[in-house]
C-alpha cells in the first residue's frame, strides 16, 4: 500500500511541476516587451484607482467559517460510515448508526440555527433587503420616466 501512495505522490509532483516547467520552457520562445501601460492593472481602460486590496463582503468570511465545521465533519464521517456495512452484517448496525448520527444531528441543528439567524443569507436583514429593493425600484422608475420623456420629445 505504501507503494501505491508513492505512486499517488509521483502524480501530484508531476502535475505540480508542469506549470513552472512549461512557463520556463516558453521563456525561450515568447517575446517580452514590458512597458508602463502593460504593467498597469486592467480597469476597463480607466486610470487605476488605489490598490487592488479593497474591502469585500464579510459574508465570504462567514461562509468560510461555516464550511470549516462542516468539512471537518464530512472528513470525520468517512471512516465511521466506511465501517457501517461491516457492522450491520456483524449485527451492531444500530450502535454505529446512533454514533454517527448523533454527531450529524448536532451539526444539522447548527445548520438550522445558522439558517434561522440568517448568517447564510447574502442580504441578511429583511429591512435591508426591502430597502435595496425599493432603491432598485426607484432607479427603474427613473429610467422608465427618462425613456418616456425621451420618447415624447422624439414624437414632438
Amino acid at each position: 500500500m505504501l507503494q501505491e501512495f508513492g505512486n499517488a505522490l509521483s502524480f501530484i509532483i508531476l502535475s505540480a511541476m508542469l506549470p513552472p516547467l512549461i512557463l520556463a520552457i516558453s521563456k525561450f520562445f515568447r517575446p517580452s516587451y514590458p512597458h508602463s501601460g502593460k504593467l498597469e492593472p486592467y480597469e476597463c481602460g480607466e486610470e487605476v484607482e488605489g490598490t487592488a486590496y479593497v474591502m469585500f463582503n464579510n459574508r465570504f468570511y462567514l461562509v468560510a467559517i461555516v464550511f470549516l465545521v462542516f468539512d471537518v465533519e464530512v472528513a470525520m464521517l468517512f471512516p465511521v460510515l466506511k465501517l457501517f456495512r461491516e457492522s450491520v452484517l456483524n449485527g451492531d448496525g444500530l450502535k454505529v448508526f446512533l454514533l454517527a448520527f448523533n454527531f450529524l444531528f448536532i451539526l444539522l441543528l447548527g445548520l438550522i440555527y445558522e439558517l434561522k439567524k440568517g448568517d447564510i443569507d447574502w442580504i441578511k436583514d429583511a429591512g435591508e433587503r426591502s430597502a435595496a429593493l425599493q432603491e432598485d425600484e426607484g432607479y427603474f422608475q427613473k429610467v422608465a420616466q427618462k425613456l418616456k420623456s425621451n420618447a415624447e420629445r422624439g414624437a414632438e
Partner: protein
Amino acid sequence: MSLAEFMGGINGFLLQNVGFEIPFLIFSILSAVIVVLLFAMPVGGVCTYIERKVAADFQERIGPNRVGPLGIGQFFADGIKMFLKEDLANKNADMFIYNLAPSFVTAGALGAFAAIPFSKHVIGANLDIGIFYVMAIGSLVSLGILLGAWSSDNKWSLLGGVRAAAQIVSYEIPLGIAVLSVVVVAGTLGMQELVDMQAWPRDQMPGHFWHVFHNPFVFVNFFVFFIAALAECNRTPFDLAEAESELVSGFNTEFSGMRFGLYALAEFADVIMFCCVAVAVFLGGWHLPFMNVENLSTGFQVFGMSLDPLLQTLAMISIFLGKAAVLIFIVMWIRWTLPRLRVDQLMNLCWKYLIPISFVCLMGSTLWVWAFKGQGMLELVNHFMSSGRGGH
C-alpha cells in the same frame, strides 16, 4: 493492481532473460506521465475543441473548421499560440504567489487522476482511500484560484477569486455527503472495490449493480453530486467566478499567454476528473447491465498467447470513457441551456437546498443498508423472485 504494477510485469521477463530489474520508481513516474501527459492533458485540449463544436451546433454555427480536417487541430494551434504569447504580470503583483498558484490548480485537477479506475488493471494508484484522496486533492483547485486571483493585483480578480473560493468551498459539502451515501452502501473507500461492487448481480456472484440504482436515496444524491460537481468546476450555471457581465473575466482577468492556458486546461481536466469520478462511484465504472466484461472471451490468439486480457482491458477502458463522455456532453449541454445564477441564489441553493437534501438522503441510505442488510433494490427483487419460485 495499479498501472505501475501492471507495467512492472515486464520485470519478471527482464530478470529471466537479461538479468536485471528496472526500479519500481521508474514505473511509478512512467504511469504518472502516461495518465497525466498522454491522457488528461490531450483529452482536456480535445474537449475545448469539442466544446466549441458543440456550442456551434447549439447555436447553428459552424465552429472551428480551419486547422486540419473539421478543425480538429484547433486546440493544438491554440496551445502553440498561447505558448508563444508574452507572459505579463502587474508591477505590484506578488510574484512568488503568482508563480506558485498554477501549480496548485494543476496538482488538484491532474493529480486526482491518480485514483481514477479506467479498467480493472489500469489505475494510477490503487489506494485503499481512493475516493477520499480524490476529494482531498480536488479541493486544492480552489486554493490555486484564490492565490492566483489575490496575487495578481486587480480588483476584478480579487472579487472573482473570493467568489470562486466561497462557491467551491460551499459546494464541497454536498459533494462529500453525496459520496458518503455511496460509501455507506459499498462499505469501502477504494475506487477499485467501489467499481467491483457494481457488477451485474448473478446467482452465485454478489454485486448490486450501479450504485445509482441501489436505493432511491442514492439516486437523489447522484443529482446532488452532479450539481455540486458543476459548481466545483466553475461551469455554467455556476460560473460566477468568471462572470463576464459583472467581473470582466473574474479571477483570470490578469492572466496572459500560457498562464491562462494552464488554468483553462486545468479547469477542463477538473470537469473530466469529476465526470470520471461520477462514473466510477455512481454509474458502475466499466460494468454494463446484463453481462460482466471480465468474463469476455473471444479466443483470438497471437503467437500462442491469448489476446483476451488485452481485449478485456480495452473494452473496460472504452466503456468507462464512453460513460464519462456522455456526462461531459451533458455538462456542455447545460452550459448552453441554463442562464447564470445570482450570487445569493448560488449560496441559497447550496446551504438551503443541497445540503439538507443530501443530509436526509445520507440518513435514508444508511437506514436502507441497516434495514435490508446492505442489499440493493435489484438484489431485493432478485431475492423476492427466487424465493417466490422456491415456494412453488
